[in-house]
């Protein structure tokens, strides 16, 4: 691994200062992605700012019934939190669908949001990749692209965002708390990640020194669920995943939130499908129609064309499942 300087500040301001003043600095949380990327020579920080000593590892109640999740809460701890399991089952399920138990014990909430794509061409230094080496091209577009994105893609990049947790957070209208050199600010999760466009190397709204300090969840009254489809029964990235919340009143959709993983370049809030579903009948034909409209925007390659149909089927099944539990079950 390329040598780097290592600092471990104990307060947030010192961490932000350290990262902002060193041009090649990276924050280190659980290490499950960054250490791997540094070993592969893809991330090459001159300074690593270890943030695991910062007091950001608690889950707190917010006035009004929401939760504030510290950026350093470990994925396994958050998945097991009784409040999350009772009030946001979609989030607990998404966390438990991701990675392995060992990795969840290490990985932090902030790090999970900032993990980078597992596109094999991004990892392979001999391949062209606009995300790793801007301007070098994209070997995935005409290459082996079975796992790649069909929504939010560009001519520069079709890499998927790999997170399960972030898909649930997108559905939940989560807000990311960020601390930067100019103080704190809040970014809706759905605006936090950027579409690749012509600059796939820029993945989030964070600037130099910006540190994710927490994620806020507004209260949720609808039933919710996470469903993940993958090549193995466990410990694999999603081909398609669906985070959904649904409340049905008198056979009509009174509230719906829908987000997709595994098919898009960022955690994908399916707003078009939501718009069609809201106020309409809560039946399978309506679910399927809304899913098809959302996926009509898909831009597929030969290797990943199957994902559009798989996404429609998975959205439909997830919403049907929520309906069959009465739209109120947790």
């Amino acid at each position, binding site marked *: *691994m*390329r*040598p*780097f*300087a*290592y600092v*471990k500040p104990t307060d947030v301001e010192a961490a932000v200062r350290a990262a902002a003043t060193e041009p090649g600095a990276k924050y*280190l949380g*659980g*290490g*499950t992605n960054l*250490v*791997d990327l*540094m*070993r*592969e020579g893809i991330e090459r920080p001159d300074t*690593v700012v*270890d943030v*695991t000593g910062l007091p950001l590892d608690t889950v707190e109640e917010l006035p009004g019934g929401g939760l504030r999740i510290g950026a350093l809460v470990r994925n*396994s701890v958050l*998945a*097991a939190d009784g409040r999350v*399991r009772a009030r946001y089952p979609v989030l*607990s*399920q998404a966390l*438990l*669908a991701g*990675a*392995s*138990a*060992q*990795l969840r*014990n*290490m990985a932090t909430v902030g790090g999970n949001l900032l993990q980078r794509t597992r596109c094999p061409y991004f990892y392979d230094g001999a391949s062209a990749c606009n995300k790793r080496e801007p301007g070098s091209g994209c070997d995935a577009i005409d290459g082996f692209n079975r796992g790649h994105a069909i929504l939010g893609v560009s001519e520069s990049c079709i890499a998927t965002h790999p997170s399960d947790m972030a898909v649930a957070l997108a559905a939940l209208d989560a807000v990311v708390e960020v601390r930067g050199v100019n103080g704190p600010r809040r970014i809706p999760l759905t605006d936090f990640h950027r579409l690749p466009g012509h600059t796939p190397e820029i993945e989030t709204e964070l600037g130099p020194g910006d540190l994710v300090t927490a994620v806020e969840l507004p209260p949720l009254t609808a039933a919710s669920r996470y469903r993940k489809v993958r090549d*193995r*029964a*466990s*410990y694999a990235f999603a081909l398609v995943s669906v985070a959904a919340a649904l409340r049905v009143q008198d056979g009509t959709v009174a509230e719906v939130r829908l987000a997709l993983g595994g098919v898009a370049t960022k955690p994908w809030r399916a707003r078009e499908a939501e718009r069609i579903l809201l106020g309409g009948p809560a039946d399978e034909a309506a679910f399927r129609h809304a899913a098809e409209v959302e996926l009509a925007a898909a831009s597929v390659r030969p290797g990943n064309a199957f994902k559009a149909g798989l996404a429609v089927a998975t959205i439909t099944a997830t919403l049907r499942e929520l309906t069959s539990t009465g739209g109120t079950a947790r």
Partner: protein
Amino acid sequence: MTEIRMKVNGSVESLDVEPWVSLLDALRERLGLTGPKKGCDQGACGACTVLADGMRINSCLALAVQYDGREITTIEGVAHPLQEAFVRHDGFQCGYCTSGQICSAIGMLAEHAAGMPSAVTGSGELSEAEVRERMSGNLCRCGAYNGIVDAIMDVAGKDPR
């Protein structure tokens, strides 16, 4: 160089390490604890699994400096009924993944006892499906999974300590 102190298998160890040295390399190369194995070195196989304050982690993705002041248990520090159960149930062939499997299983049983959920269910007795899901971070390329699951099921619920 950064000086770190860890309690490893019960004894306090002081080490000077560069910040880019993984916990796995520190254990293997500096402390001579070659039980944790370097399988993939990228967090995909689980052969490097150790316990940090009783919690299972992939030591290949851990920087040693991050574990300053922590208590690490490798297979060399384990005396657990799982070890005999793995022998009894043929829970391995080549043995390369076994130290990681056993450390992982110890952590898994503690997680289950503490009520931590899994993608399969969440509570109650450990079913075979639960064991397979909760142990999915440990690959066995010989394919000894049936024996591994049997060994864990044999020990689960029998007060492993």
